[in-house]
């Protein structure tokens, strides 16, 4: 049979494809029906949090930080309750990471605050002596891209039926409504911050990236 295949490239290619596709069909497809159900209490991200999440991806925070607490006592002691599948129901893409150069961030919102993040992003060594994390000063200069974040929220609502605008779920509404809600949410974070330039910019109606990423990090619980 193998000699015959080696003389018939088309059937050879079909054979290879069947053999390599088999595993994916068996291991991946069945669970697509199952595991996307959210845990009770898990909510989609607000537009500001989503904008922060996009910044998290833009600067590849996931290259050094995981978001997956494994079910070991050493991890639950350090980071809190181990992760459940349903907690990730609205994570597109998932951000588990593959390396912990820094600590896990799955539940960082439970034990870090806005002002801690502000100092830490500006000068990590000032709050964690010996840290090898770089400062992210540019987050204090760049403006948040609210339109793209809103576009993403609207897309997942329309295409994947993510339950925005449902009872007890975050409101999305039109862009103007979403922008207004977002400014109110951002105002609370800016109020807890010290940086005068970020505050000045907010008065002008600009939201710096640092505000959005703190909103996202605070939402991780």
């Amino acid at each position, binding site marked *: 049979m193998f000699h015959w295949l080696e003389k018939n490239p088309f059937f050879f290619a079909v054979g290879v494809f069947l053999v390599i596709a088999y595993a994916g069909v068996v291991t991946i497809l069945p*669970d697509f029906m199952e595991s996307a159900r959210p845990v009770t209490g898990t909510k989609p991200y607000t537009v500001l949090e989503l904008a922060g999440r996009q910044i998290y991806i833009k600067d590849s925070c996931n290259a050094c930080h995981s978001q997956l607490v494994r079910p070991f006592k050493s991890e639950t002691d350090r980071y809190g309750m181990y992760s459940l599948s349903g907690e990730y129901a609205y994570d597109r893409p998932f951000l588990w990471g593959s390396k912990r150069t820094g600590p896990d961030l799955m539940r960082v919102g439970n034990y870090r605050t806005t002002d801690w993040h502000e100092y830490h992003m500006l000068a990590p060594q000032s709050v964690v002596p010996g840290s090898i994390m770089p400062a992210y000063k540019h987050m204090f200069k760049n403006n948040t891209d609210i339109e793209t974040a809103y576009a993403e929220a609207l897309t997942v609502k329309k295409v994947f039926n993510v339950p925005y605008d449902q009872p007890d779920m975050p409101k999305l509404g039109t862009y103007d409504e979403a922008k207004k809600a977002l400014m109110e949410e951002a105002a609370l974070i800016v109020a807890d911050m010290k940086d005068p330039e970020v505050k000045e910019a907010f008065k002008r109606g600009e939201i710096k990236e640092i505000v959005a990423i703190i909103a996202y990090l605070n939402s991780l619980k």
Partner: protein
Amino acid sequence: MQANHALNYDYSVAKCFTYATILFGIIGMLIGVVIAYQMAFPDLNYLAGEYGTFGRLRPLHTSGVIFGFLLSGIFATWYYVGQRVLKVSMAESPFLMIVGRLHFWIYMITILAAVVTLFMGIGTSKEYAELEWPLDIAVVVLWVLWGISIFGLIGIRREKTLYISMWYYIATFLGVAMLYLFNNMEVPTYFVAGMGKWYHSVSMYAGTNDAMVQWWYGHNAVAFVFTVPIIAMIYYFLPKESGQPVFSYKLSLLSFWGLMFVYLWAGGHHLLYSTVPDWVQTMGSIFSIILILPSWGSAINMLLTMKGQWGQLKENPLIKFMIFASTFYMLSTLEGPIQAIKSVNALAHFTDWIPGHVHDGTLGWVGFMTMAALYHMAPRMYKRELYSKKLMESQFWIQTTGIVMYFSSMWIAGITQGMMWRATDQYGNLAYSFIDTVTVLIPYYALRATGGLLYLIGFFMFAYNLYKTMTVSKAIEREPQNASPMAA
């Protein structure tokens, strides 16, 4: 193998991809060395403002070496080996010549665009699949062109039986096509919402499902880019350079079909103790162990090909590169399954042992084999002898030292880190705060980066040696049958 004098093979596309291999090799490895030093000396993060942080550069390093250096290496060898094992010249088909050139230029544009966008932070965050949808489409186009080139050449072949290398090239084409398409399923947000950045997209899969698809892809991208095409290379270049027939046809058969079937199941070992179903994790673990069989099958087949001819190892540095590569393939494919055992993975996952493992495969196996292949091709493509054997010898030892420094420091770092994360005091409380487990690693990070630097220096020696071979080396009249001619 019979003599090839009757045919005039066309190497113009192979040459283009050879230059690309050198260019992207330098870029990719240079960035790798920079980010490795950043972990020991964080101030190096500020060399280029927001564009120079570890987070921005890491995807550039991985994509640069995988899709820049290695893919062009694979394409370069394909445009060389394909014609020879099928006994047909590309020049016989003007259509295939156009496809080949188009393939090269679309590839170059795509990779250069990838470099720019990753610097800007435009990406999807999925490892080794960071590119946004417009570039994903470009990748699909260049992949289809490669497919046309493969099957077009097969269509006009004279040698009816496909040589072993061909099996592996075909598998690379099919495997990557399937994986890349499914993992990059995404919805461009602009077309749904009518606002925001036009190139932004959101993944079709959420959470745990997304993780499963990603690591089915991520693990098998390693299979079909780091393993399968490299085996294609070694099955052609080692017998050709040494003048020895492949040891066993049956073993190559078993290894090929075994590898094809087993590899795809093993992706689950990246997700042990995560929230994916338990049986998927267990399957990933078990199949990773089974994977030793087909992997070692190929490697042993290559080592035994040298049976009775081990003297060549002393005389010919190219043989040394290739034998060293298969030895490292064996080490790496033993280490991987060990890390996939659940109890070992509990310690090793998320630590530096993982990048350590990746690099003894990529530097030792992939890098050495690709460079050996290009060394072998150069005298035949440029009709000149290799410029310097001595330089090649020094390169070999400098790079080998680099690799050993790399993986040994990462073994120690990874296991130290894993043990410290779980260490408890007499009351059962965690013994170390996280930062303790970071600062203790800094000497190993410095050692690793220096290992990487040695490898990069070796790569510059390789580039220089090839450049001299192409330009000033002594011309040869007849194509060498086996051992590549080289000046002392």
